[in-house]
């Protein structure tokens, strides 16, 4: 029943280049192929199948669907698609197959092997009629002995002069053989298929790249969060360290008032005691004096009143109360200042802040540390409110003030100056301390650079201050002379460009 073509051997093997104008072999069944291929609806369906790739459908399934569509369109019994593996020249991978032994899809074909290898290598379509097992090709596309391939076609899939793989369809014995005409027509189809495949591949690639990018982005965001966490922890521990540096002053500022207020209460208790005694004595004397006036004309109550210096009590109780109120006010203030300083973690929000109030608040907690060594002077300019993260900025001020205090040995002067220049506010902290030698000047903003003994310096103050000021879009300048002193100037934009200021700050 095999139709022997004139130029084939007994085994009917066609391994010939198919001429463009090959004669139409009017084989039975061939007409149906042509009919299908000319069916516009069928082509549209194929195109649509290619499009589904864009929707992120499993690419293997899309390829399988396309193959099935083609197999049915060519009235084939089975078929397979092999694509050149990404990143290689000619390593082929079977990506789809119908009616193939299990494990065939996903298997790879080494260079130049089999019908696929041949077709990809030559870039020419191939028609095989007869017993494929007897072809001279090293491996057959379909080696199922029980249903030996009767007729097969294989086309290269080409996109813009580049071969991306190959497609093969087979008919088993019993069906009419494919003709050169079929091969020719199929060629048109495969170029469409190649486009669909390439398109699909591009989609997949793009999607992969997007996926890759977004995982990369996720990883970066996680890293950023980690970094931010670390930075916040660093800021917290620097805060603790700098509180350690000012602990003496803070203790002084709390224990002094608490001491005298407590003591005053003790005095007040005894004052009140003598006033009560006086009142009782006066009552008793009054009761008696109505009956019998004393012969000398002086009541015992009067005498007692002379013994207790009422005038003294009057003035001292008033003073005592005023001083105690002042003392408690101071304790309250320093506790509030400490709270201002330590509040605000990662979630602190931007606020419009009166920087002078912030400076005063910070100055309050360091004042006691500094006032024994230096006169503190302030020259505040006219500053509008500045949009900032207040507790972060307080930390910058604290660092600068503590550094200035530590730079001064004795009898120094510490000047705090502020002003506005254009759209920037500036805050300068100037000391008459030791100054910074040239060889240290470009290192002072380095984390952990310190010239101070353990317990006095962490080396983190300026590096954190720098990053805080940078976060505000500002900068820090240093002006220093060894033996004369140092002036740090912080410049901050009055407004942050990005966010609208939240209403909370009004």
């Amino acid at each position, binding site marked *: 029943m095999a139709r022997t073509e004139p130029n084939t051997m007994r085994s009917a093997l066609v391994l010939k280049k198919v001429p463009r104008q090959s004669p139409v072999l009017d084989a039975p069944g061939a007409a149906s192929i042509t009919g299908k291929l000319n069916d516009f609806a069928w082509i549209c369906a194929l195109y649509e199948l290619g499009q589904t790739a864009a929707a992120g459908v499993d690419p293997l399934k899309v390829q399988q669907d396309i193959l099935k569509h083609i197999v049915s369109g060519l009235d084939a019994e089975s078929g397979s698609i092999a694509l050149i593996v990404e990143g290689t020249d000619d390593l082929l991978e079977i990506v789809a197959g119908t009616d193939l032994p299990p494990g065939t899809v996903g298997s790879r074909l080494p260079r130049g092997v089999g019908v696929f290898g041949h077709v990809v290598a030559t870039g020419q379509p191939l028609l095989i009629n007869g017993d494929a097992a007897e072809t001279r090709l090293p491996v057959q596309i379909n080696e199922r002995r029980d249903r030996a391939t009767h007729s097969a076609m294989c086309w290269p899939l080409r996109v813009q002069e580049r071969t991306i793989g190959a497609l093969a369809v087979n008919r088993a014995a019993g069906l009419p053989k494919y003709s050169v005409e079929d091969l020719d027509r199929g060629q048109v189809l495969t170029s469409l298929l190649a486009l669909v495949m390439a398109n699909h591949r591009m989609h997949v690639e793009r999607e992969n790249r997007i996926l890759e990018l977004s995982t990369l982005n996720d990883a970066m965001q996680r890293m950023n969060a980690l970094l931010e966490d670390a930075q916040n922890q660093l800021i917290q521990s620097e805060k603790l360290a700098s509180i350690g540096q000012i602990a003496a002053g803070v203790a*002084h500022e709390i*224990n*002094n008032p608490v*001491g005298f207020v407590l003591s005053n209460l*003790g*005095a007040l208790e005894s004052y009140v005691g003598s006033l009560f005694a006086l009142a009782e004595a006066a009552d008793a004397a009054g009761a008696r004096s109505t009956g019998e006036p004393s012969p000398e004309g002086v009541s015992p109550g009067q005498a007692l009143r002379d013994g207790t210096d009422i005038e003294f009590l009057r003035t001292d109780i008033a*003073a*005592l109360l005023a001083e105690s109120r002042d003392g408690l006010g101071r304790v309250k203030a320093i506790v509030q200042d400490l709270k201002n300083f330590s509040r605000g973690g990662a979630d602190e929000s931007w606020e419009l802040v009166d920087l002078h109030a912030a400076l005063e608040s910070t100055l309050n907690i360091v004042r006691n540390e500094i*006032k024994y060594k230096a006169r503190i002077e302030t020259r505040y300019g006219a500053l509008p409110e500045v949009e900032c993260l207040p507790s972060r900025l307080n930390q910058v001020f604290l660092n600068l003030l503590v550094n200035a205090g530590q730079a001064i040995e004795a009898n120094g002067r510490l000047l705090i100056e502020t002003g506005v220049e254009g759209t920037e506010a500036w805050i300068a902290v100037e000391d008459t301390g030791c100054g910074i030698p040239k060889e240290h000047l470009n290192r002072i903003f380095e984390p952990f650079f310190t010239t101070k003994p353990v317990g006095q310096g962490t080396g983190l103050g300026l590096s954190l201050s720098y990053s805080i000021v940078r976060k505000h879009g500002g900068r820090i300048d240093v002006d220093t002379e060894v033996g004369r002193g140092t002036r740090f100037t912080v410049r901050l934009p009055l407004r942050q460009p990005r966010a609208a200021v939240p209403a909370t700050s009004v």
Partner: protein
Amino acid sequence: MADLLIVDDEPNVLNALRRMCMNRTATPAIPDPHVATFAAPLEALAYMRTNRVDLVISDYRMPEMDGASFLTKAKMLQPDAARMILSAFSDMEGIVRAINDAGIFRFVAKPWGDTELRASIVQVLEHRDMMLENRRLADEVRQQQDIISRQQLELVRLEAESPGITRVRWTPDGGVLIEE
């Protein structure tokens, strides 16, 4: 009569301490207190040049000089005045200096408790009185020993001048017994 001198750069603390010292109804009360207060250590030192003081109480952290330096100078002016530090804070180094150089009797932390502080003051004053008393007694003893030894010296001299003279025995009627 107890003469107290108190130095603290904080006037409110000085006022409170004065009230506390003058409180006679509390127990223990400081016997017959006389209190002079100064916010500046230098003024306190000037006062001590012309006024006898029994006890000096000083803050530790002050602008002109710290408590240890102040008390060291006070000690040079009046070694017999007792010394205390009353401080809200001091580092180890400061306490060591106060003890070794200024020879303080007590170190009291702020915030202080009135009763404890007054008790400390009374104790320190008593301690100082005792020390002074001991020294007075010791001086007396030494003086007496001095007199005795001078008499002995005189005897030695006389003996050298006229040998045997120290061994002269007098008769009850004023005669001299000479033993050959």
